[in-house]
C-alpha cells in the first residue's frame, strides 16, 4: 500500500505541472501568478510581524481547500463537455448529511459509509445528467433546480440541526496524517522520501515530454525556460514537503488530492474517454457524426461530478466534525471560479486539470493570506471576484492577439 501511495505521490500534481505546461503561456502565467501571490502575502505578513509560510499554515491550506480542488476536478469535465453544475454545493451538503446520518445515527463503520455515500452522490449526478444529456434540458436549469432541491433535502434530513460528532476513523479523512513508517516522527522521514521521489519524477517526466515533443517536431519552449520553471516548481515542492514533514507529516487529504489529480490528469490527457469529452465540448455535432456517443459521455460527466461532490461533502463534514444545514454554501462558485481561473473555456472543449488545480490553489492562498492579514470578508469577496475577472480577461486578450 505504501508503495502504491509512493508511486502516485511521485507523479504528483507538481510533476504533472512540469510535464504538462509545455511552453503554454496560459499555464506558465498561472504558475507565475501563484508564485507572485505567495510572495506578496509572505512579504506583507512579514512586515506585519506575522508568519505566512509556516508548517501549520501550509498544512491548513490543504486541509481547508481540499474540497474545492476535489469539486473543481469534476467541474472541469462538466465544463469541458459544454455544461455547468450549480448543484455541487448543495449535493456536498446533502451527501455530508447522509454520511452523518449513517455514521452517527445508524452507527455504520466508515468503510461502509464512504462507498454508500459515493453511490448516493453518483445517483444524484445520474438523475441530473439524465435530464441534461437525454432530454437536452439546459444544465444551468437542471442544476439550479438541483441546487434548491438538495439544499432542501439537507435541511429535511438534518431536521434543521447539526449531526455530530464523528468517530475518529471517519474524521481522519479530513484531519488525519500519513504516519511515519520509519518511526522517526520529526521530521517525518516517509514524507521526505515521498517528496524527494516526487521531485525526481517531476524532472524525469518533464525531460521525457520534451524528448517526445522533439521527436514529433512539436515546437518546444526554450530550454532555459523549461529548466527554470521545473526548478521553481521543484523548489516549491521541496519547501512545502519539508515544512509538512517537520510538522505533522503528509495530510491524508493531500494524498487523496494528489491521487485524484494524477488520475484525472491522466484521464483527460491520455485516454480515449477523456479525448472524447473534449471533442463533445469542442463540437458536439461533429463528435456525434464521428461515432461518439455524446449523450452518454455528458451523462457520465454528471455522474462523476456527483461522486466527487459526495467525496467533497464527506471531507468537509469530517473536517467540521458535524453535518450542518448550511454546509457547502457557495462551494459551486469556488469550484467554477477555479476552473475558469485555470484556463477552461466557457463554451467547452478546452481546459486542463493542472490549470484547475493551480487555479484552486490561487483561490486558497488568497483566502488564507487575506484572512491572516485581517482583510475583512467583504473585501475578500471583492478581491476574489476581480481576480477571476482578470484571469479570464487575460485569457481572452491572449487569444485575440
Amino acid at each position, binding site marked *: 500500500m505504501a508503495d502504491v501511495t509512493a508511486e502516485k505521490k511521485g507523479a504528483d500534481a507538481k510533476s504533472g505541472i512540469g510535464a504538462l505546461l509545455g511552453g503554454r503561456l496560459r499555464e506558465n502565467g498561472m504558475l507565475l501568478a501563484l508564485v507572485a501571490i505567495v510572495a506578496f502575502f509572505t512579504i506583507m505578513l512579514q512586515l506585519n510581524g506575522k508568519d505566512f509560510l509556516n508548517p501549520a499554515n501550509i498544512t491548513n491550506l490543504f486541509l481547508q481547500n481540499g474540497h474545492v480542488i476535489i469539486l473543481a476536478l469534476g467541474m472541469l469535465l462538466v465544463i469541458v463537455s459544454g455544461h455547468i453544475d450549480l448543484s455541487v454545493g448543495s449535493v456536498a451538503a446533502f451527501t455530508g448529511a447522509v454520511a452523518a446520518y449513517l455514521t452517527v445515527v445508524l452507527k455504520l463503520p466508515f468503510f461502509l459509509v464512504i462507498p454508500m455515500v459515493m453511490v448516493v452522490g453518483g445517483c444524484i449526478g445520474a438523475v441530473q445528467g439524465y435530464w441534461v444529456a437525454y432530454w437536452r434540458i439546459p444544465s444551468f436549469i437542471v442544476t439550479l433546480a438541483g441546487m434548491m432541491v438538495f439544499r432542501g433535502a439537507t435541511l429535511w434530513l438534518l431536521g434543521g440541526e447539526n449531526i455530530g460528532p464523528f468517530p475518529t476513523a471517519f474524521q481522519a479523512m479530513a484531519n488525519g496524517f500519513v504516519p511515519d513508517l520509519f518511526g522517526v516522527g520529526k521530521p517525518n522521514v516517509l514524507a521526505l522520501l515521498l517528496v524527494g521521489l516526487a521531485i525526481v519524477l517531476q524532472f524525469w517526466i518533464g525531460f521525457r515530454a520534451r524528448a517526445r515533443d522533439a521527436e*514529433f517536431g512539436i515546437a518546444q519552449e526554450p530550454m532555459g525556460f523549461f529548466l527554470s520553471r521545473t526548478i521553481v516548481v521543484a523548489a516549491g515542492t521541496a519547501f512545502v514537503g519539508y515544512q509538512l514533514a517537520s510538522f505533522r507529516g503528509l495530510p491524508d487529504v493531500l494524498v487523496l488530492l494528489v491521487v485524484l489529480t494524477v488520475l484525472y490528469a491522466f484521464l483527460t490527457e491520455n485516454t480515449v474517454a477523456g479525448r472524447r469529452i473534449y471533442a463533445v465540448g469542442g463540437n458536439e*455535432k461533429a463528435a456525434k457524426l464521428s461515432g*461518439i456517443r455524446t449523450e452518454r459521455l455528458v451523462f457520465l460527466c454528471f455522474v462523476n461530478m456527483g461522486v466527487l461532490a459526495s467525496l467533497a461533502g464527506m471531507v468537509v463534514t469530517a473536517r467540521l466534525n458535524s453535518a450542518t444545514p448550511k454546509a457547502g454554501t457557495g462551494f459551486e462558485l469556488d469550484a467554477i471560479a477555479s476552473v475558469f481561473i485555470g484556463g477552461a473555456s466557457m463554451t467547452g472543449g478546452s481546459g486542463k486539470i493542472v490549470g484547475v488545480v493551480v487555479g484552486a490553489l490561487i483561490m486558497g492562498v488568497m483566502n488564507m493570506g487575506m484572512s491572516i492579514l485581517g482583510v475583512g470578508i467583504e473585501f475578500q469577496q471583492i478581491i476574489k471576484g476581480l481576480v477571476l475577472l482578470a484571469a479570464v480577461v487575460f485569457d481572452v486578450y491572449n487569444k485575440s492577439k
Partner: protein
Amino acid sequence: MPTLLEMRGISKTFPGVRALDNVNLDVEQGEIHAICGENGAGKSTLMKVLSGVYPHGSYEGEIVYGGQPLHLKGIKGSEAKGIIIIHQELALVPKLSIAENMFLGHENAQNGVINWPRTTHQTEGWLRKVGLSELPGTLVGKLGVGKQQLIEIAKALAKDVRLLILDEPTAALQENDSDKLLALMLELKAQGVTQILISHKLNEIARVADRITVIRDGGAVSTLSAQDISEDRIIRDMVGRDMAHRYPERTPNPGEVLLEVQNWSCWHPEQAGRQMIKDVSLTVRKGEIVGIAGLMGTGRTELAMSIFGRSYGKAHSGTVKMGGKATDVSTVTKAVAAGLSYVTEDRKALGLILEEPVARNITIANLPGVSRNGVLDKRRETQVAEEYRKQLAIRTTSVQQKVVNLSGGNQQKVVLSKWLFTDPQVLILDEPTRGIDVGAKFEIYTIMKDLAAQGRGILMISSEMPELLGMCDRIYVMNEGRIVGELARSEASQEKIMGMILKGEGKAA
C-alpha cells in the same frame, strides 16, 4: 465610362505574412467587376481594406473613390459612402423578421421609437425589387439560403448602395437560386449599381462580369475585359500554371456491389407526416464513383445522413446491405464499423473540431486505432496524422496546428483523412469541393480517383453538374425525396439531368 473606384499600390502586411503586395484595381461606374483567385490569394483582405474593416493607415497605398481620396476609419464610414459588402457568411439574425433585419442598425425610428408601419411598407418595396413575395414579418430563419441572400441585397439597396460587393454569393446556392441572383445582378447593373463579384464559379463570371481581375499570391495578376474571357485563361492566371484537365484521368473498373440501399424512406424529425426520403434504392460498386444530382433541398444530404447511423430523420424504413449482406447501420458507430463513412457538406459545423489540432481531428473517429485498452498512444497518433498529411498533401506547419487556421481545401483534406483512417469501404462525399479553390478541387478529385482505384466505393453528392459529369461513372438524379432517374457516364449531360429533375417534379405534383 468614368472610374468609380481606383485602388493603387495596396499592400497589407500581417505579422509574418504579406497578404497584399502592391495590388491595383480599378472599377468603372456601372460595371460588374469580377475578382477571382485561389483561397488565400488575398481577395477578402482586399475587400476588407476597401470596406474599412482595416482602417486607413493600417495598409499602404491609396484608394480613390468617386474622384475623392477615401480615408475610412471603419465599416460605418464605407457604408455612408454607399460601399456595401455582402459576406459569404450571411449576417442576418435568424430569429428576427425580414423587416427587422432589413433596418437593423439604421431603424426607422424617432427618439428611439420604431415606426413600424413605415418600416413594413418600405420593406415590402425593397422585397419586390429583389423579386421576393415574402411578408415583411416572416422570420429570416424560416427562409432558405437563396432567399436570405436576396434579403441581404435588399438590405444593401435600402442603404442606398453605390458599390455593391458580393463575396461568393452563390457558394451555398442551388442552380436555380444562383440564376435568380445573377439575373438580379444584371438588373441592378441596368439601374446603375456598380458591383464587385468575388467568385470561384467561372461560368457565372463569364455570364455577368464586364471585366475580371485575377489575384494570385497577394498581387493582381491581370485585368481582362469580357471579350477576352476564356475559362482556361482565368484558371491559368489563378493557379499560375496551365491546367489542361480539370478532372484527373481515370479508367473506371467497377467490381461487385459494396453498398446497396433498398426502399429507403424516412420522415422529417419535427414536422409530422412530412416524408423526406421516399422509397430510395441505389447501389455503389467497388471502385465506382456514383453521383447524386439534384436541386438543393431535394433530400440528398438527408438521404446520406439518414443512412449513416440515422443521423437525420425518424421512422426509417428500408434495408441497407454492405457487401451483399443486410447490415445494421442504425447508429453512427455501427455504420462506421460496417465500413461506411459520411463526409459532411458543412465541414465547419459538422465535420471538424475547429479549435483542436489537425492530429486530434484526424483520429477522432477511430480512437481505438491509436490506443490500447482505452489509453492513447500519442506517438502513434502523430505518426498517423503525419501519414495522412503526406498522403493527402495537407498544407499545415505541423499536425499540432489548430484546424481553424487552415484554408478550406486543407480543412476538407483533414475531414477526408479522418474518415480514411476508419478504413471505409464506401465513402459518401457530400459536396466535397464546396467553397474551395480550383487548385484544391483538383487535388480532392485526385484523392477520389485514388480511393476508387484502391477498390473503395464513392457516392458523391454535388450541386455542380460539371463536377458530377467529370468524375462519376453513374449519376442518380434526385428530386423531392425520390430518385427520378439514373444515367451512365456515357449518356449523362447537364440537359438530361435538368430534364429528369423537371419531369420528376411533374410526377411528384
